[in-house]
């Protein structure tokens, strides 16, 4: 077992000559970690994520998944290890029915058909898709198509999930459902890397946050550490979530804690009030 499940060393990549997007990215992720990737629009988050399932290949440097150099491996081989969620469901869905879309991955794993059926049935049920299993994905609304792409990943159950803005365009119920599923996968030991602009999700879920800025990893650590680096936040167009900003403002009153979620900040404020009375 490799020590790092995902590794990039001095990774360079650009879509056009002389315009590198990634300028020497180096990072290592141990198995089972919950990692958020943040950065301004156009900072290269998607470009970096696509290196981890072989959709893009390093122009310089190296990317390793579970210890193996991606340069030696096909996208098909990598799909067994890395489940990739595209930013837009349109980029992902291509089968004529929802059932076939969700069955595509497990079939390609070469599983017996009874096992494929079990996995598809379970995934459709998990995402409330039983009613639309026979429909073409194109007639479904955005939120439902997003659930189809998540069900496809769930049916594969790969050890690594690489998710490009998994909550964009979802309503509140869809967002909570999606984050709950990702949280469950993390709880059973899967490695999660997700790109997002939602700092409240970063604060609440991520063990570690990577900031991509000007083609390099500009910060790497727990969310609470990042939120203290004001100058970097401003350069990278990031704003901490309201709870974190309020926790900072209440520190002069003796508030302890980082206020990483509404529940956490509520406990911290209640503790402060009780201490002072």
């Amino acid at each position: 077992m490799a020590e790092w499940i995902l590794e990039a060393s001095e990774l360079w990549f650009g879509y056009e000559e002389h315009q590198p997007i990634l300028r020497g990215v180096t990072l290592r992720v141990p198995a089972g970690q919950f990692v958020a990737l943040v950065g301004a629009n156009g900072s290269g988050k998607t470009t970096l994520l696509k290196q981890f399932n072989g959709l893009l290949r390093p122009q310089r440097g190296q990317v390793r998944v579970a210890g193996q150099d991606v340069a030696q491996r096909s996208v098909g081989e990598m799909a067994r290890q890395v489940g990739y969620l595209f930013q837009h469901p349109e980029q992902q869905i291509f089968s004529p029915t929802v059932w076939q879309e969700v069955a595509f991955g497990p079939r390609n794993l070469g599983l017996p058909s009874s096992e494929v059926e079990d996995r598809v049935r379970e995934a459709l049920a998990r995402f409330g898709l039983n009613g639309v299993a026979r429909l073409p994905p194109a007639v479904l609304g955005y939120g439902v198509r997003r659930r189809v792409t998540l069900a496809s990943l769930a049916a594969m159950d790969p050890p690594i999930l690489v998710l490009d803005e998994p909550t964009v365009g979802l309503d509140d119920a869809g967002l909570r459902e999606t984050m709950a599923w990702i949280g469950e996968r993390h709880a059973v030991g899967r490695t999660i890397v997700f790109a997002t602009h939602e700092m409240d999700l970063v604060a609440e879920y991520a063990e570690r946050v990577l900031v991509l800025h000007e083609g390099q990893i500009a910060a790497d650590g727990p969310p609470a550490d990042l939120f203290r680096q004001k100058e970097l936040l401003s350069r990278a167009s990031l704003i901490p979530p309201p709870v974190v900003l309020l926790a900072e403002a209440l520190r002069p009153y003796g508030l302890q804690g980082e206020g990483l979620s509404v529940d956490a900040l509520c406990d911290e404020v209640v503790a402060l009030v009780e201490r002072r009375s």
Partner: protein
Amino acid sequence: MVVVEGVRFAYPPLSPEVPAPWVIDGLELTVRAGEWLAVMGASDSGKTTLCLLLAGLAPHLTGGEMTGRVVIAGRDTRHHPPPALADTVGLLFQEPEAQLFNPTVEAEVAWGLENLGLPPAEIRARVDEMLALLGLDLVRYRAPGQLSGGEKKRLAIAAVLAMRPALLVLDEPMGGLDPAGRAQVLAALSDLRHRDSATIVMTESDPEAVALFADRMVVLGEGRVALAGKPRDLFLQLDRLSALGVATPQMARLATALNRRLGTDFDFLTVDEAKTALGECLG
């Protein structure tokens, strides 16, 4: 500025045997001139369709079936198709690609102004102003297709705002933008609204933005108005909003949680309000 009366709307059916559902089903809504209205609601609650109805694109472009009436600045959209409303209504589509087609960023913003027949000096001045306001100066000669997702979104917004329509209909203007981009767009809207006294109808899923800027909000459910009121009155009804699939500001959730634990009656929605309220309580 806007009157929507008893409107039902269904898109054309996908097949002749299956009747299409009413996406908008008995909608009543009025928006006063100068008001900033946020429209929230779950996916498929009818938000985008409402935007298309306000711009007259539904039913003129979409086809489908419509009853009731939509009146914009005194003009019934049934009898005034989109070109006849273009001087009054500016529509921002949810996907910026839907409305970008010019060779350069600068030309994209100028295009609508040229169609209004404005003099060249006025066009230049408005283009410069919008590019500066939305942080697009550095990419003004680039092709829209080469921009990042966030830049495309800001460009689409710049092109709509440059026309200075009396009614701005914005479908998820902050969608896909990073936090700095969202702040930039909100600041631009806020500026122009005061200067041009524009009316804004904006669908939005970011409750923090709604809490900071909207005068009033409506929540759509099943194609009609399920809740309407000031953000402060609605955002503290966490359970009702959650049942309608609407996110609530972190500060509203904190206020509610503290009230439950401490017996207080906080009603803050923003960090600044929370700072003041908790500062007084702790000070």
